[in-house]
């Protein structure tokens, strides 16, 4: 069992290295770099460029060195918590993104919990009441959740919140907490503000999860051991809780690998529409203005979130499912 855990954790390292190479290539792909466009912009405005600062930045970030060296420098820096320099904000990247990444984690985390809390009971209801009106209604709702792009949902919700509750739902906390250190009132304010984004973001993944879990549970309910349990005279509720539900639970945990990328994507685009202080809007800007280290750090961070999330779900699955636990490190 310990071997499986160690194996699984060690496997993350090459994955992360590959991810960092891809991220680096992507942010390097556009012709030119931020410094060049920055100089051009300043010159176009007729301002003089401080050649010393340019030379300093060029040297500091090794922009004059070959690609491989630049990559190694960047990757080495990240291991030490130095994510590079944001040219647009004139600050080290770690200072710019710290709070935003925390908020991204918080919003995604709440969304996952919400998705589970909503999808689980609904899927059980739909599977046990197959082809009832409730099942049809919930399925329709689920399909709508899949089909409506969440940025439109965000726009409409923002409008409705404005009309009905006369509150603005942009932002994630009361204005007085912005830029302040974390305290209990601030955390509460974030929780109060995050419910609308959470509903919007989770719409898609909840709908998907309900469909998959329902199909899975329906398969289990037709199996022989359920028939046997019924024939023995177990009450239906106990049959459900004792056997098929536990089988479906495994799937429930492993499914996080497929909903997590969706949730993070959803968080980003919803954040752009609602202008939430999470990674999304800033990543978009950084990509547009070629602020390469900022964009690279965001991409790296989001990918890391998924890798860690999948690791956690794998470990949880190991704890739950004896078939994996007993096989040790030879899965797959």
């Amino acid at each position, binding site marked *: 069992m310990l071997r499986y855990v160690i194996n699984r954790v060690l496997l993350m390292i*090459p*994955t992360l290295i*590959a*991810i960092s190479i*891809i991220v680096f290539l*992507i*942010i390097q*792909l*556009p*012709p030119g770099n931020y410094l060049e466009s920055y100089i051009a912009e300043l010159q176009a405005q007729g301002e003089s460029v401080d050649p010393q600062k340019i030379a300093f930045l060029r040297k500091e970030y090794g922009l004059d060195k070959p690609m491989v060296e630049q990559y190694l420098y960047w990757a080495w820096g990240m291991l030490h918590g130095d994510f590079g320099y944001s040219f647009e904000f004139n600050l080290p990247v770690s200072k710019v993104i710290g709070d935003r990444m925390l908020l991204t984690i918080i919003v995604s985390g709440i969304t996952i919990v919400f998705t589970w809390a909503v999808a689980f009971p609904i899927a059980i209801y739909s599977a046990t009441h197959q082809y009832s009106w409730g099942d049809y209604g919930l399925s329709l709702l689920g*399909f*709508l959740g*899949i*089909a*409506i*792009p969440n*940025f*439109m949902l965000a*726009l*409409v919700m*923002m*409008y409705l919140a*404005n009309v009905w509750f006369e509150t603005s739902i942009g932002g994630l906390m009361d204005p007085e907490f912005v830029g302040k250190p974390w305290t209990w009132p601030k955390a509460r304010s974030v929780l109060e503000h995050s419910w609308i984004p959470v509903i919007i973001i989770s719409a898609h993944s909840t709908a998907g999860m309900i469909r998959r879990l329902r199909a899975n549970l329906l398969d289990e309910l037709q199996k022989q051991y359920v028939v046997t349990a019924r024939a023995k005279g177990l009450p239906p509720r106990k049959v459900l809780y004792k056997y098929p539900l536990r089988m479906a639970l495994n799937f429930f945990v492993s499914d996080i690998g497929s909903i997590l*990328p*969706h949730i*993070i*994507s*959803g968080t*980003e*685009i919803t954040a*752009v*529409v609602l202008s939430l202080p999470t990674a999304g809007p800033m*990543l*978009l800007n950084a*990509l*547009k203005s070629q602020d390469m280290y900022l*964009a690279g750090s*965001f*991409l790296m961070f*989001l*990918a890391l*979130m*998924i*890798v860690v999330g*999948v690791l956690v779900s794998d470990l949880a699955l190991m704890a739950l499912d004896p078939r994996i636990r007993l096989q040790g490190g030879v899965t797959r």
Partner: protein
Amino acid sequence: MNPPAIAQSARELEHFVSEAPFDATSATRLTPQQERFYLASQWMLMWWKFKRHRLAVVSAIVLLLMYGSALMTEILVPYNLHTRHADFIYASPQSVHLIHEGRLVAPFVYELKKTLNMETLRREYWEDTSRRYPLRYFCSGDPYRFWGLVDMSFHLTCPAEGATLFLLGTDRLGRDVLSRIFYGARISLTIGLIGIALSFVLGIVFGGIAGYFGGLPDLIIQRVIEVIRSFPELPLWMALSAVLPVTWGPLLVYFGITGILALLDWTSLARSVRSKLLALREEDYCTAARLMGARPRRIIARHLLPGFMSHLIASATLSIPGMILGETALSFLGIGLRPPITSWGVLLNEAQNINVVALYPWLMLPVVPVIIVILAFNFFGDGLRDAADPYR
């Protein structure tokens, strides 16, 4: 027993023998329906099974209609993609009436009048019911070049001379939203098809290599897939489309975006190809083909793939909606397709802020065809998958 005893018992056992001529196949003869079923090809069986899935059939018809309309957009819509009406900016949707002064008449519209509200500084549109303008059918209106080849001006419906026909309102340049939605269908619908074709090829090639050869190629491809799947789709799409050079023309950007969507989508297809091939390559017919000297490419493409092609097509159909949504999201954010190319996402880009929702809600209407297409592809794909599954 001795021979006379046998002869004795045979005499005692007199039994009935029918005089009618005997037909050896009569006992196992199939009804014509059964015969048709057993002789049907695999695709025929799938078609019969698919027909039973009502929702999927309806979705297939909806999709056919939509793709059909994309073929002759110019004829179906009253205006051209870029026709501007400077006098009718942000006009609200006009309705078609059938009843005039209590009598049923041919479909007509009232004149659209505009006043500037001096308090809110908004243009307010209202119908002047004093005059009615019947619609014209099979008429000549805005000239266009059909499929970029033939100069034509034929339209299914046009407004009457001097009148307007904005069934879904106009946008900030006075362009008819309905016409633009129809034109947008061309781009939005094809981007899913081209994208899936690309990812289908990628998935089969890489999945085929991984599954058939195993060993090191398999290990490498598996790791690559894992790395690609560790990225959240949208941010990576965003990053890649930000990389597309700004000097590219609209057509190149279109293919660039399609390529980006396909680049991240092939992994699930490759995985299912791989797992099927891993099982199938041990089959006897595969060994036979190999012993006869067939090359790997022929074995994979000729002997192994057809065995689960239907299943692959079904799962590919199910990933088209994701691509359409992806393009819509990218264009909505302003880093996907750019005008003059018009997709539903580009149209929604105009509906980006809350003012639009409050003041000009009809600009959000391009989301309706998006929802319809996504739903239709989902149901259609579900139907296909059930039909392709021999165990259901």
